[in-house]
């Protein structure tokens, strides 16, 4: 967004478009233009800043981190709270005029009222700094029990859920439009009935929406970029999608993403959008990271690595690059080792050992700032070195059997019989969600089988002195 001319064009087209709506109520076209020109000449806007954030999910924990000696446990404690604290601090430090929160303050099924009280304490800090907060309830908030009883300080304004509403800040000439979710699953386009923009005001819309649909996010309150653009607002603060994304530059239509990644599907920097509106009413935006620990996926290419140690070296190099890219931010990493390597057998026959090596290397390289969440070995032997071609003798029998299991889904499923006792006992969390364990899933069983193969062959063939 540069300069006066762009703004001029947009303003005038907007007003021309809006004129018939106002014509009857406010007088003729000529007087409208006069008013607009007067305002522009007198430069009636004053510069201000605000923050757009969303999807706070307060007190939602980081998912399924396996603790090990030396893992940076302090870095993950109360991550969402500390990230929210960063939001409050940033707002105060930047001296913003107000904050827009586009839904999902809480996790829907989280019942602890303390979370609400903590929120109140933070909002009070903002009140003391003279910053007001405008927010809509998202699908999670609609499901939350905390929302129902919590009394928020007077600087916090929650939009109603039965119809859209508008708050105006007359000193800054700002109009904020929004509507909350009444129930967790809203399937209609809420933006359709948002109010028409107030002329002469900086109009922003706060909306919790899946936009035109985003993978991994429930399809709630769908809307289109065109639809939003046609509203004629100056800024759309969207929430619900956890990834920072700019849907449009003119006007700005932005997903701020969530403020703290909580699992491996929420990688990269997380934070809020700082919007600076200059004295001509032109907004500039800047992404501000707020997260206290960041999720990343480290893919290690093991192609041609002679031994596990080479793979380790490559992992360390990748990690160093990643740490540099993230300016030594604390990280949670998922490690994917893939490719064709002669070390495949050693890696898989000693998964425990190599996992520990990777964790130790990560601690060393990062100075205890990296938590290795999980290590996935997706390696293969190079085609020139396929294992055990013989199909005769006892070992041949074993290899044949392994091949049979790998090829026949029925046999694979039979393997899950071994796990029935365990399946009955494991907690529901492991059986839910996109990365759940399904004991009868042939894909899962097949991947285990691929790991069992070297375990057995190495285990049987191992000789201490053999080179």
């Amino acid at each position: 967004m540069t300069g006066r001319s762009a703004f001029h064009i947009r303003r005038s087209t907007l007003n021309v478009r809006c004129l018939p709506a106002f014509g009857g109520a406010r007088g003729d076209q000529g007087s409208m233009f006069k008013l607009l020109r007067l305002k522009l000449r007198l430069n009636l806007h004053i510069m201000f800043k605000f923050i757009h954030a969303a999807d706070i999910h307060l007190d939602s924990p980081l998912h399924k981190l396996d603790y090990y000696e030396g893992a940076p446990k302090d870095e993950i404690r109360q991550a969402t709270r500390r990230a929210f604290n960063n939001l409050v601090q940033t707002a105060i430090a930047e001296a913003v005029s107000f904050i827009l929160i586009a839904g999902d303050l809480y996790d829907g099924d989280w019942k602890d009222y303390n979370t609400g009280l903590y929120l109140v304490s933070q909002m009070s800090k903002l009140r003391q700094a003279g910053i007001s907060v405008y927010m809509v309830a998202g699908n999670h908030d609609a499901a939350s029990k905390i929302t129902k009883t919590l009394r928020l300080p007077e600087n916090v304004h929650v939009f109603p859920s039965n119809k859209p509403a508008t708050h105006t800040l007359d000193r800054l000439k700002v109009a904020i439009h929004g509507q909350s979710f009444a129930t967790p699953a809203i399937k209609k386009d809420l933006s359709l009935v948002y109010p028409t923009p107030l002329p002469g005001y900086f109009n922003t819309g706060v909306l919790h929406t899946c936009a035109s649909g985003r993978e991994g996010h429930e399809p709630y309150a769908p809307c289109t970029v065109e639809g939003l653009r046609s509203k004629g607002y100056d800024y759309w603060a969207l929430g619900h999608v956890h990834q920072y994304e700019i849907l449009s530059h003119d006007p700005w239509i932005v997903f701020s993403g969530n403020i703290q990644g909580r699992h491996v599907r929420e990688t990269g920097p997380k934070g809020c959008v700082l919007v600076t509106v200059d004295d001509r009413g032109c907004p500039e935006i800047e992404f501000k990271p707020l997260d206290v620990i960041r999720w990343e996926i480290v893919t290690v290419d093991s192609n041609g690595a002679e031994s596990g140690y080479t793979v380790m070296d490559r992992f360390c190099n990748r990690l160093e690059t990643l740490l540099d890219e993230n300016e030594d931010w604390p990280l949670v990493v998922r490690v994917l080792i893939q490719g064709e390597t002669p070390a495949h057998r050693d890696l898989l026959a000693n998964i425990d050992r190599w996992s520990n090596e990777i964790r130790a290397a990560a601690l060393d390289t990062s100075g205890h700032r990296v938590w290795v969440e999980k290590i996935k070995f997706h390696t293969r032997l190079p085609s020139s070195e396929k294992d055990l071609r013989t199909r005769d003798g006892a070992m041949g029998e074993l290899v044949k059997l392994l091949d049979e299991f790998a090829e026949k889904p029925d046999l694979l499923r039979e393997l899950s019989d071994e796990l029935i006792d365990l399946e009955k006992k494991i907690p529901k969390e492991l059986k839910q969600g996109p990365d759940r364990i399904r004991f009868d899933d042939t894909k899962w069983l097949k991947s285990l089988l691929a790991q069992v193969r070297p375990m057995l062959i190495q285990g049987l063939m191992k000789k201490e002195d053999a080179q």
Partner: protein
Amino acid sequence: MRILEFRIIAYGPFTDKVIELSGGKQGFHVIYGLNEAGKSSALRALRNLFYGIPERSTDDFLHPYGKMRIGAAIQSGKGDVLEFVRRKGRRNTLRSGDDKTVIEESLLNKFLNGVDADLFVSLFGIDHADLVRGGKEIIRGAGSMGQVIFAAGSGTSNLRGLQEQLKSQANGFFTPTGRKKKINEAIGKISNNRKVLRDAQLPGQQWAAHDQALNHALAHKQTVETDLAKKRRALHRFERIQEALPVIAKRKERLNEFRTYATAVRLPQGFRDQRVDLSQELRVSENDRDQARNSTEALQKELSELQISESLLENSTVIEEIHREFGSQHKAAGDRIQLETRMSVLLGEAGEILRGLRDDLTLDHAEKLRIKKSEAARIQDLGTRFERIVTRIQTAREAIPTLTHRIAGIDRKLEKLGTARQIDPLKHAISRAEEYGALEKHYGKERSEIRSELKTLEVALGKQTLWSGSVEQLEGLPVPSLETIILFEDQNAEAEFKCVSLKKDFEKIERTLADVERQIDELRLQQEVPSEQDLQKARERRGRGWRLISPTLEGKPVLDEEIHDYIKGVGDSKTLSAAFENSVRKADEIADRLRREADRVAAKAKLLADQTSHNKERDRLKTEIDVAEKAQEKLVKEWMRIWQPAEIMPRSPKEMRAWAQDHKALAAKAKEIRERQAKVDRLKDEIDVHFKSLNQCLKKLLEPHSTEGETLADLIQRCKRVIRAEEVLHNNIKQLQSEKAQRKQELAEAQARVDSSEQELSQWQKEWEQAVLPLGLDVDAVPAQANAVMEDLNTLFGKLKDANILQKRIHGINRDADEFAVKVSGLVDTVAGDLKELPAGDATLELNRRLTLARTAQSQRQTLGKQLAQEQSRMDKAVGRIAEIETRLKGMCEEAGCERYEDLPEAERKSEKRKQIEAELNTLDERLHQLSAGATIDDFINQALTVDPDDIDGEISRLTAETETLNREKSELDQRIGSERTELGKMDGSARAAELAEEIQLLLGGLENDVEQYARLKIASKILNQAIERYRNKSQEPILKRTTELFKQITGGSFQGVRAEFDDTGQPVLVGVRPGGKEIVPVEGMSDGTADQLYLALRLAGLQDYLERNEPIPFIVDDILIKFDDDRAVAALRALEGLSEQTQVIFFTHHRHLLELARKNVDASVLIEHTLNV
């Protein structure tokens, strides 16, 4: 595959070590190495050869990584040979024999038949540790059949261990009923944490309830506090009045008393104390004055008694000086005595020396004898030169006879040795012949091998059918090429196939045709199916009838014959009408049937059509069969024709293909033998040539000609001995000659030295004569004499010098003593005439003593003077103080209005009383002020007097009770407010619940990984067990059968074999069987040694079973017999010998006795020995 040659080119301690392994059929190779290091390196090299040298190999101590090489030539079962070199590196490590061209690993893999590195080590290798571990595993596993069979078939000695490990690791993670297992524990913790989390979570309503209760309590507390304040005020008023009443009464009493003392003087604070202090001080001062006076008098008396000599004190400095000087004088006197003694000793010694040199001189004239330093040096130098010249002459003279003698000796030796012979041609001949000497052995071996192979070939040729001829004819036989035969085979098969299939088709069509005819017959037999023609006929008959009846009805005439004919034609009728009726019924019947039996009619029609078409097909096939049979005959004729040149009556192409293949192999063998024979013949010719040339050389040297049976190698050895002997002789002569020349040179030099030295000596004598004159010596005096005189002179002058120094010091001491005595006598005259007679030393001491006494007295006088002054000043002070005190006491009397000091105490008492009453009144007023709560005292007193004292207690107790009630209520409210605030305080936005949720996630993270690991272990366990069971089902029988034989053999018959039994749980187990078959020994009952042997038997059985169906792979044995006694070791060696019929056996050992056992007990044609040395 077997290894023909194993080359350790650069690896471990080895450089270019070649082990030839091509001997024997497959070969039982025993590789004996002295030290274990070399043996293990060779073993490793063998494994690395096939599968690459590991990245971090430790065998680079001699050859760096870049240079490491292992090579081999191997041969597959089909006879293909591969020669290759393995280098160390990451890729392209396999090269052809020239170490240049890269070879694909896949090529080598074909020879290895898919056996990878691990399997090679485990199935085709066994060492002592494996054996022991394997034996132990059998015992631990109680002979479990599955385990035993699988271990035998895979070579693993770790099976049971792995099974146990998988099981115990899985159990370590999870069991359905466990609590302490990792997964169980984590699940327990998670569910526990969930409970704690539920408790930690704060419901919103709870917070609201507490907030409301707090606000309510705060409001209530405010009203209670207002009420309480009111009651307290009333209560307080009554309490004040009650307290004030006695005070008012007391005040009245005190006012009355005051009147008595109103006139008394009010003395200031501390008046009495001041008075008492002053009186006391007065007494002290008077006392002080009297004491000072007494002291003054005593001191004055003491002073007057003191006496002091002033003249001594005036001269004190001089006295102290001479006292100090006296000390050094005393010491010097002692020193002088010593010095005199030493001087006289020195003079005595000097005199002694002088007398030794010259009788005529005294010490005073000794100076005449002093010589200059330059002269002394010259004499010493001449002395040294003399020694040198004399020594040189002597040495040279002694050397001459020795050298002459030695030269004579060398001449004698040379004469004895004689001259050397010319041997260069012989050397030359040997260098050419040597190469063939080495080949001679090879020639013998090759010749015998050719003979044996030729024999084998002839036998094979004899067995060959269809053709008989000589080996020579074999190669030239014009046999059609294999391709041609195969072509014929294919064509023949095709033709045959064509005939057969045509015939088959023909038969089939015949069968179908028969079937169709049968069906037609069937239809016919069921009931003749009416046809359209039948209906046509019936209708015609009906028409004919009508044409007869119609005229009849119309009354027209009809011929009787026609009617008769018609009736007859219809049949079964007597009249025309009956016949017509019959014909109408028949036509209808047919029409009805045609309609009713339309299916059958159609079927019949189809069958008839089929029959026609099948007939056509049959005819076509018949023709084709004829054509095919003719073609086949032609083919047979052609077949016969191509075999005619070889004059062979061929059999079927398939048979002839096998025959031709055999023939080809035989022809190839014949060619190979022919070529080898030619090579051998050439070799023999070369050997003979060299034999001859060597013999000629020997003849020239007059050495004996070679004898019968002497080989070329022997001859070469003999020639080399001749050369060595000749070379030794030659060297000896040369050495002696050179020694002789050297000695001669030395002799001439010695003679020259004698002459020159003698000249030098005569020159010296002249110089010497002049030099020793000043010493009083003549020319004959030797240098030693001159030196002795010079030394004495040195000593003499040294002593005289020392004596002179001592003399000077004594003189100085005497002079000092005289000066001191004069000083002392002067002083005595001045200060102490009475000491005049005393010697200077004693006088000095006495003067010093007197001076000390005088000084002590002077110091005492000063002290006394000071004390006296002090006492006088003390007295003056006391007198002054007394006057001052008396003045002040008089002032006090005036203040109190008294005449005398003694009246002062009474005045003081009255003053005190007045003050006391006034103070009490003040206190009472103060108290009343306090109680009046702001009113004046008089108002308050008036007010109090209005209240009836008897009502007060009642009012107070009523109000007290009321306030207490209110207080209790307030305190309860305070408590409630406190507790509500505490509750709300606890709800401070704490992150406790959130942290518990985090904890749960941490546990879930760990759990997820553990679940996967558990799943892997369980799956691994299941698959392993299935594989074991499958392999057992498949291989138990053949492996047990072989094991039985081998076990019997290896245990030397102490077991008859093994067999399967069932244990208590019904599982099959392996047991040993004693001879006779009745006694069964469970594996747990076997000794460790027997278990080892059982394991060995099983391994060999497993291996043999594998080799039955697969390409052989060499079996590498690493010293497994070290713990076997000799009998069992022999049995095991024989078992390995047996195995070597199936595959190459390479047995590494570093025990010589095992090598010897093998030598004695293994067939010499099978056993091939190798010695491994670095």
